[in-house]
């Protein structure tokens, strides 16, 4: 347990250092790069002062850590708002999208894997094989675009982009549209929120879904061959009970932990998906910040992503160790 905490703190520490040096590695004068070629010398000087670029490197690093510990990530150059406030408005959108995608991926993925494992080499198994090759090779932004084209434009069933329709009014309380809609009891808001969420969530779910399905299949086939399944069968238990109670339960552990460890993959996909559907989350903001050379915003966005990944990894590792007593003995 201590080892897990230490390693993750170290990773976050390294991420902070990398993010700090991001600005300093930029070729040329960072202040000039941020403001563009037409900036006046006074403006450059004031940015340099504001970001502390005129002080010695170690002092800068020290004050960067002090500010971080106070939750201060600086101010965005483009918008002028505090970076932490920008994160607060965007992070819930990304979390909402990722959580729903993960849910879709888990439910459909496990179901597909179960059906394939029931009859290896059968029709469902072949379908799963083709699906996972597709999932690995189809660019996620292209898939999103196709879905938007078919369901948004041609069939006109779902909205093309954004998070909410223009006609609904929304006062963010928690920042999560669906949660707020339930809290307010606002049915129109909920409908608009879920309609906008379906296409991006399905797009983002495909890659983890194919991975989860393959893992479930492999893990189930292995546990169906295990001795405890043979024992259960010898005891005369029903096939139904053997499948769900003995085999599936044991097969799910590696699936859950692998899903947790692949959380980074999901966030990487979220960056692309958000840009296809103009989803106002962290990924879209990250790309805007790079395009606009808005380094304080960029630093904030990367730190949030890195912290999120590290937290999920640490949680997964803890659950993994708790759930499987064999690991405790071996370590």
């Amino acid at each position, binding site marked *: 347990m201590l080892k897990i905490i230490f390693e993750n703190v170290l990773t976050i520490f390294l991420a902070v250092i990398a993010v700090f040096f991001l600005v300093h590695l930029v070729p040329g004068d960072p202040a000039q790069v941020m403001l563009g070629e037409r900036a006046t010398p006074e403006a450059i000087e004031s940015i340099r002062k504001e970001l502390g670029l005129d002080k010695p490197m170690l002092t800068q690093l020290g004050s960067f850590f002090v500010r971080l510990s106070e939750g201060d990530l600086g101010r965005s150059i483009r918008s002028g708002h505090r970076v932490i406030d920008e994160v607060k408005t965007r992070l819930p959108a990304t979390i909402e999208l990722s959580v729903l995608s993960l849910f879709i991926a888990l439910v459909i993925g496990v179901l597909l894997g179960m059906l394939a494992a029931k009859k290896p080499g059968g029709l469902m198994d072949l379908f799963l094989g083709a699906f996972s090759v597709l999932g690995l090779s189809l*660019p996620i932004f292209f898939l999103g675009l196709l879905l938007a084209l078919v369901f948004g434009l041609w069939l006109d069933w779902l909205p093309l982009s954004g998070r909410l329709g223009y006609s609904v009014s929304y006062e963010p309380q928690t920042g999560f549209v669906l949660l707020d809609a339930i809290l307010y009891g606002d049915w129109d808001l909920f409908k608009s929120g879920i309609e906008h969420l379906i296409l991006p969530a399905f797009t983002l779910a495909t890659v983890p879904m194919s991975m989860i399905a393959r893992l479930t299949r492999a893990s189930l086939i292995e546990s169906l061959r295990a001795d405890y399944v043979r024992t259960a069968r010898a005891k005369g238990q029903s096939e139904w009970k053997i499948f769900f109670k003995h085999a599936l339960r044991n097969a799910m552990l590696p699936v859950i932990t692998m899903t947790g460890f692949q959380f980074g993959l999901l966030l990487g996909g979220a*960056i*692309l998906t958000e840009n296809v559907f103009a989803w106002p989350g962290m990924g879209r903001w990250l*790309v805007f910040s790079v395009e606009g050379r808005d380094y304080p915003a960029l630093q904030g966005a990367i730190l949030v992503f890195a912290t999120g990944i590290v937290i999920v990894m640490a949680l997964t590792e803890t659950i993994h160790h708790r759930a499987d007593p064999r690991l405790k003995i071996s370590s």
Partner: protein
Amino acid sequence: MKRWHFYLGGFLVGGLTILAIFAPFIAPYDPLLDFRGFENHAPSLSRLGGHIFFLGTDALGRDLLSRLIYGARYCLLMGCFSVLLAASIGVPLGLYAGYHPRFDAIISKASDILMSFPAILIAIMIVAVLGPGLVNAIIAVGLTSIPIFIRLTRAQVKAEAKRDYVKAAEALGVRNTRILFRHIFPNITSPLLVVVSLSLGTAILESASLSFLNLGATPPLPEWGSMIRSGMESFLSTNPWISIFSGFCIFLNVLGFNLLGDALRDRWDPMLRIRDG
């Protein structure tokens, strides 16, 4: 069993290579030439003012088919150079990590940490430092692929180092560097080739993603990722073909490299062959 993987993968990759090399002979028009008055045409076989635009034209009246054919060059260029960069840094690091335990602790930990973050996030970080562009995207994608090469090379070296020929070389007092590069390295090239093929697929996907995000190759270059973007931004409702065809090209090529990598792995990984029965 996976023979068709090999043939289909080989066909797709071979097709891409031929298109890339012979683009000027195959493409009907110059990919940068805009035909004024023929903007945003849908695919058709009919003659328009003496020209045939099989796959239609884009917003500036450029022939889409020609742009897609030339796009093969950028796709292959970005994929190959980034994998070359990744292999030339990752393989030596992996060789040392597999052979020297002290090196191993640092290098493995570093590559583990890097691998826990999504490649596209790290690539975006690198582009943020270097600035957007074709060459910088290649560097970014190359650097993010290094850990895969380190990990595989290290594992292979660890297995090889127990073999008799390595022990014999050690007993003879051959220098470590020589053992690594002259004795071990030639014996691990086949598994490395599998990784090269699989990471080419990933690298193409990743560089197209960067271009799609406007951080890699930028217009007017006929690069597929950026073509999807410009097709999506301007004329998705009237002329979705630009994005559809460009996306399909990326998909076919990534699929090609993935299938080829799979087939090669089955061939060279005897453990896998036994397990799969």
